[in-house]
């Protein structure tokens, strides 16, 4: 996750409390999605940004996950995400996200 976004997430967690945050990720591949999720849960695995060694343990979901899909308006989802659902390897993305949450999520 780029350094500026790491800083923003950290600032929001400090300001609003980690338990009140959900991070929504939109990466196009499992590996990139998992990296973003790991950064906001276990800390920046590349040791480059403000979340290095910071274990926020936040709830992180990708837009193709059923939990997100169920939480939003069906028509809007279809319009905004419907096409990409056909393009992305959603199984790969979902399994990466689930595995990161199971290991590092604190909430």
């Amino acid at each position, binding site marked *: 996750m780029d350094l500026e976004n790491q800083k923003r997430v950290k600032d929001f967690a400090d300001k609003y409390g980690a338990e009140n945050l959900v991070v929504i990720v939109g990466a*196009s*591949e499992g*590996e*990139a999605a998992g*990296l973003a999720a790991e950064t906001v849960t276990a800390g920046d695995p590349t040791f480059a940004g403000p979340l290095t060694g910071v274990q926020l343990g936040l709830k992180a979901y990708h837009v193709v996950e059923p939990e997100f899909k169920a939480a939003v308006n069906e028509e809007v989802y279809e*319009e*905004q*995400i*419907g*096409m*990409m659902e*056909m*393009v992305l390897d959603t199984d790969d993305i979902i399994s990466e996200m689930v595995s990161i949450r199971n290991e590092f999520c604190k909430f």
Partner: protein
Amino acid sequence: MTFPVIKGAGYALVHTPDMIIHNGTTQTTERIINPESEYLKKINNHLRSYEEVVKYIPNQVYIGNMKPSDLEGYEMPWFDKVGKTDERFGKFGEIMPQDEFTGLMKMSDVFDLVLLEKDYNDAVKAKLMVHPLFKEEAASMKDGVEIEEIEKAVADHAEGLYNNGTLIGCVKRAHDVDSNLTAHILFENLVVKASGVLAFNNLIEKNNINVEDIDYVIECSEEACGDMNQRGGGNFAKAIAESCNAVNATGSDTRGFCAAPIHALVQASALVQAGVYKNVVIAAGGASAKLGMNGKDHVKKEMPILEDVLGGFAILISENDGVNPQIRTDLVGRHTVGTGSSPQAVITALITDPLDKAGLKITDIDKYSVEMQNPDITKPAGAGNVPESNYKMIGALGVKRKDIERKELLNFVKKHGMNGWAPTQGHIPSGVPYLGFAMEDLTAGDFNKAMIVGKGSLFLGRMTNLFDGVSVILERNSGKTEEENTVSKEVVKNMIAEAMRGFASQMLGEE
């Protein structure tokens, strides 16, 4: 309507291994943030030689010795495979070595900012004097200077020029105080100018064009030249035209991030179709900042650093000649302020809106040329296969529109898409790499329609969060010119006279 045509294409690559280390931002940033990093220590072991770069299959495709479809015959990764061609010069252009390019930078410099060490200068001058495009100009190249003068300049704000790890020259700053005339900026600007000159000269040479027929140049790279009072004043186009002896041309720079080449293509087409100019060249050189951008991932995966070339292109747009592919200026797609940012909205605006206007299905376009980044570079860096992702999105929209069935999606990608082959130099892979091949596919080949798509990430400039994109359809020339399609004035006059005679005799008859 009489549409303008694509009349010629030129493409150039420059191998610049030392510039990766000294000018690529991934490396320069690393030196600031983490000077002891392992990555910086390992880079030298991951640089390819000029011979390897010439032989590299995607590079052979870029200069036209192989076709994009040839890439299907090679399993990825490509960097360790041997292709069927390995020539430095190609159908559309060439792959220039670094030393010759530093000489070209010096020849492109009209303010004595580029210094080359004298023995190195002589050697490079000798090489350029046997280069088919530069021999005359190289003959009048000034002598070099003592290395001490270069070392002193580098210690005092000049950007070093290196070859094989050795300091051989420098680019000086043009002003003591002006922050827009620093050596760093002048270096990058001379790089984009010189590589633009290389591509432009190749366009002229490979297409038998009379350079004096060019009346306008649009430069569409992503650099800015100016001084502290006008940071992006320009005008790279005019500078390149001058260096290439396009004596009857003027020009201007068009900026649009990576989408700029297609904006330039549309603008050039409009100028020609409206009769303002007859022959417009759109051209751009490469970006030294982008060299080795994904180097850390390449090194981590024990690969060579594949972003070791600058890219350049030059395309000629001219009046309809009844032969070359015509540019359908009435079928332009564009991402507007109101389009929205979802992939679906973007693809609809760029791809299906112009198709709908023409009553075409997604499958009526034989080939789409999108962001043709070489996946050999992007996949190991976690950035996926960019052309393939684009084709999947186009196909997916086709499925939603019921132009194709869900199960035909991957087949659509194969049939209407292409493997990527262009270096990740921003504007360079954006739609334009295919134009040279389109000239053949849409004339001697079997295709009838191609769509050229450019996209840009404007948010990087921090002025807008918006995305951008523009597209245009090319089609096989119908062979008819406007005259054959219209009725002449004489015929119309006769028809009116006939009708009036008939009316008059009717009136006389009634009296």
